[in-house]
């Protein structure tokens, strides 16, 4: 299947996961990502060496992933906002125990039960821990179906490379979108490099322990700094963002995922009437692509952050750029999916309010 | 039929013992008592009374070791 295929977003993630050697999936039905769970059930049933479990709860699912990861498998779970809330302790444990795993969040309306429409309301939850303790989760935000495949492959690689959990952040719309995609070559998990810390029975070697309890405060501080150094290294290695028409821009929109696609449509419209507007689209939300933001802010001083929430990523942009630039925000929470026209109007009105048409 | 009389002996690791007294309560031959010397953890450990062959009634039944929570007792039996 290496030609272009038309496939829905959730299925693309599932197919790529299996092609990336993922042999353990546990999940719980929750809209709008049920198709991913169902796809994994079908795909794994066709393999001889995989396990699919519809777990009794979101919590059980993430804990099964912990176990599968301890056993050396590429393991994945997926859910949507409230279910991801339930998984937070598990994610904290994955980070603390330095276990690789991939978690997919298809964001929906919130807080609480919310609704099943697409939003970006879980940015804080994803990038600010969500779970307890001093840890970070690598967070990747695709916007196109091809990226769903590319990022899913990268997610498993990052997880193994940095022995840390990785979250793929999408929304319901992206999960349902169908676009052509070319899948990466399948990997045989048995050909992956062996992991030196796996719990598979102490035959011919000393017994191993995977734990996160460190009662000795000196040792726990050491462990926290060790994780910190890992995250600093990840920050150096992973800085992913796409820039679109920013070279001559007077105003740059910052948006990710579905919001970025809408913004791109809006930018095409305003460019048609002569406004110099560009787009900076983060692909890694943690680490936040500071370097690319800083580079862009050397020649652009006005930014409009557009999110499908009441303002979360905008805080990261402000942290990065407030001293050098004007940061504006436009948000629609609750599952509203703006049209490019709406965003074009917002951009246009801001552009003229800020007198950006003058040189 | 002559009854085979086993002779036994136990070694109590006084630094593992926590003085819980369970071995003393189950020994069928009352061959264990409490030491008057504290161990490093601050417990009065159990001690084996069989100091000489004459007053050693231990048969190596290992009942003490079976109930000892701290695996503090090794049991020897004469064949």
């Amino acid at each position, binding site marked *: 299947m290496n030609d272009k295929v038309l496939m829905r977003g959730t299925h693309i993630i599932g197919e790529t996961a299996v092609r990336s050697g993922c042999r353990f999936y546990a999940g719980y039905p929750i809209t709008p990502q049920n198709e991913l769970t169902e796809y994994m059930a079908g795909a794994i049933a066709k393999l001889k060496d995989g396990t699919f479990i519809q777990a009794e709860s979101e919590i059980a699912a993430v804990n099964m992933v912990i176990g599968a*990861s301890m056993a050396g498998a590429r393991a994945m779970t997926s859910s949507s906002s409230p279910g991801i809330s339930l998984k937070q302790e598990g994610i904290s444990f994955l980070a603390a125990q330095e276990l690789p795993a991939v978690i997919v969040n298809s964001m929906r309306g919130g807080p609480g039960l919310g609704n099943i429409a697409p939003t970006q309301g879980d940015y804080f939850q994803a990038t600010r821990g969500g779970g307890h303790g001093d840890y970070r989760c690598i967070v990747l935000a695709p916007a196109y179906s091809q990226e769903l495949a590319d990022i899913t492959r990268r997610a498993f690689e990052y997880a193994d490379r940095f022995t840390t959990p990785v979250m793929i952040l999408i929304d319901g719309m992206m999960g349902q979108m169908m676009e052509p995609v070319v899948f990466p070559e399948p990997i045989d998990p048995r050909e992956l490099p062996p992991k030196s810390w796996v719990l598979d*029975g102490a035959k011919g070697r000393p017994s191993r322990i995977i734990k996160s309890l460190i009662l000795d405060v000196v040792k726990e501080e050491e462990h926290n700094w060790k994780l910190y150094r890992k995250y600093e290294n990840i920050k150096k290695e992973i800085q992913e963002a796409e820039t679109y028409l920013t070279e001559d821009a007077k105003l740059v929109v910052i948006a990710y995922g579905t919001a970025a696609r809408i913004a791109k449509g809006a930018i095409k419209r305003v460019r048609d009437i002569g406004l110099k507007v560009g787009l900076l689209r983060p692909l890694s939300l943690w680490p936040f692509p500071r370097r690319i933001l800083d580079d862009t802010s050397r020649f652009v001083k006005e930014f409009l952050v557009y999110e499908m929430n009441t303002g979360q990523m905008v805080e990261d942009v402000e942290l990065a750029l407030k001293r050098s630039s004007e940061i504006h925000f436009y948000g629609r929470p609750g599952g509203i999916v703006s049209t490019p026209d709406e965003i074009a109007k917002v951009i246009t009105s801001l552009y003229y309010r800020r007198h950006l048409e003058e040189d | 039929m002559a009854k085979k009389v086993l002779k036994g002996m136990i070694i109590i690791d006084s630094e593992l013992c926590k*003085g819980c007294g369970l071995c003393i309560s189950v020994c069928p031959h009352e061959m264990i008592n409490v030491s008057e010397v504290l161990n490093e953890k601050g417990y009065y450990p159990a001690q084996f009374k069989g100091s000489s062959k004459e007053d050693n009634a231990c048969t190596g039944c290992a009942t003490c070791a079976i109930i000892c929570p701290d695996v503090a007792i090794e049991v020897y039996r004469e064949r």
Partner: protein
Amino acid sequence: MTAQLVFKRPRYLKKTVFHYCPGCGHSIIHRLVAEVIEELGIGEITIGVPPAGCAVLAYDYFDVDMGEAPHGRGPAVATGIKRMLPDRIVFSYQGDGDIAAIGTAETIHAANRGENITVIFVNNSCYGMTGGQMAPTTVVGQESTTTPGGRDIKRDGAPIDLSEMLALARGSVYIERTSVNSIKNIVKTKKALTKAFKIQMSGLGFSLVEILSPCPTNWKLSPLDSCKWIDETITQTFPLKVIKDETIKTEL
């Protein structure tokens, strides 16, 4: 005297002082599990999942691969390990809060799915590590730090018969309740553990051994009196017996 060493520390128990209290049942049970693993020759292929609770440090004692689970999630973590490594022996070692309060769903569903794991349920009728609060298996009238005056059904609810409930789970194969409060019961517990691990080795399904365990510190009794108290009081609510044994049917 040409003496033969007839009882010593089992191979799979590290030579270290247990942090458990004097007279604690965990210590005895750890030793029994290590003995069984050695006698069955499975030490090199066993992976254990310790709980949150007094036995959280079990990985310091068992000389086998050990993977820590969040509180209550042992059966889920064990499921993940066993499904990925079906030819290894996986056990989850849990206290009563871990297995019957926060972890109830994971326990029931692992049993229901018939996961081929062995669960060791250490029941001391209280939350030991956190200082003696009520547990799901605290018996009526039993004092605890959160049941002043003793557990009262109206205020605190009745104790839970988790092992009896698990017998209804279709995937459960063998469930027995034993104790380690006497030599006789310790010997029975070891037999039950051996059977449970053998069931896993034969791929027959989910096995669980519930072990009534003395907790002198939180019961405020001496080790010896704790053992007696299990006979006098706890077994009135939680009788020692084989609760389910599907292997009898298969043998017939």
